[in-house]
């Protein structure tokens, strides 16, 4: 496994979801550092600050105040220094069209928020693992698309 901790960033305005998220990673045996922001603007601010260690993977909710997840996604994709950032959309149910749209705009993963804690744990663990695989096994990042 990765030598250092995997840096994870979550952008979600919902308190409960943040709670679940944290709990999952507390229970998972993977070496992770989890940070959170509450809305789109905070997210962009966080990513623009150079002193922060950039996350390896970003979990991005779509329905956020001030700036929607989609807007953030598009912006992030335009930023050079965030090119290697894996982006996982983490959202409640959305139509096929919306899912496709996020992929087209550069998302790597789409996660539909599950309604069972066990499932959430499994999904997040899988995502982290796969993402790490992509980062280490020379797989083509451009083709990294996953929908859960």
């Amino acid at each position, binding site marked *: 496994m990765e030598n250092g901790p995997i840096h994870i960033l979550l952008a979600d305005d919902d308190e409960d979801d943040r709670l679940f998220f944290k709990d999952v990673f507390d229970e998972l045996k993977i070496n992770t550092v989890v940070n959170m922001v509450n809305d789109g603007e905070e997210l962009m601010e966080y990513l623009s600050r150079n002193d922060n260690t950039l996350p390896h993977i970003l979990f991005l909710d779509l329905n956020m105040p001030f700036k929607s997840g989609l807007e953030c996604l598009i912006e992030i994709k335009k930023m050079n220094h965030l090119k290697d950032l894996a982006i996982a959309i983490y959202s409640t149910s959305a139509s096929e069209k919306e899912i*496709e749209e996020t992929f087209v705009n550069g998302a790597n993963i789409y996660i539909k928020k599950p309604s069972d804690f066990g499932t959430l744990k499994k999904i997040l663990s899988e995502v982290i693992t796969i993402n790490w695989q992509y980062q280490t096994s020379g797989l083509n990042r451009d083709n990294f698309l996953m929908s859960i």
Partner: protein
Amino acid sequence: MKFYIKYDFNAACKKILEEQLDKAGVSYTLLGSREVEIKQSISTKKMNLLCVGLGNYGIEIIESQKNILVQKIKDTIVEMVYLDETQSPLRASDYLSEKLQYSYGYLSNLFSEVTFTSIENFIILQKIERAKQLITTTEFSVSEIAWELNYSSVAHFCTQFKGVTGLTPTVFQRIIKKRRKLLNEETDNEMIVDTKNNKIKDS
């Protein structure tokens, strides 16, 4: 003007490796594309420099034996997946144990221990990775790709593809196409904007 680039990773990496090793002033021999034998003992400082230098290119030096073997397993698997369908082995397990001279059971356990996933999963992952590559770089139909990758049926291929990515091959294809289109539009816009910098205007 737009160009389409094809990469020969091996050649590029080899070159980088050679450059970096030369820069570090190390005498070495390349054993294949993944192994380097360094003829002398090397100081930690130099090693670090070398690591950093190679790290810039995303090249890692794997030290632990286990890691090395695991890496070999991965490489073999990749090799196997990218074989022509006429040469594809009937069973991956036989192929691996033969190539690496270890029992499949041992390889399997080691792999799981280090990577936390199974060899089977990794094989599937690689196959699907190749499928993705075929989808994005060729005009093959889904059934053609399924055949190329030695799947017993298109349905089986679709199931696996969907199992790994969560998307059907067709949808994946569509998304890649749309993505490309979007990027093209963006770069076109950028290029038009860059006329002041005397870049060529692409209409």
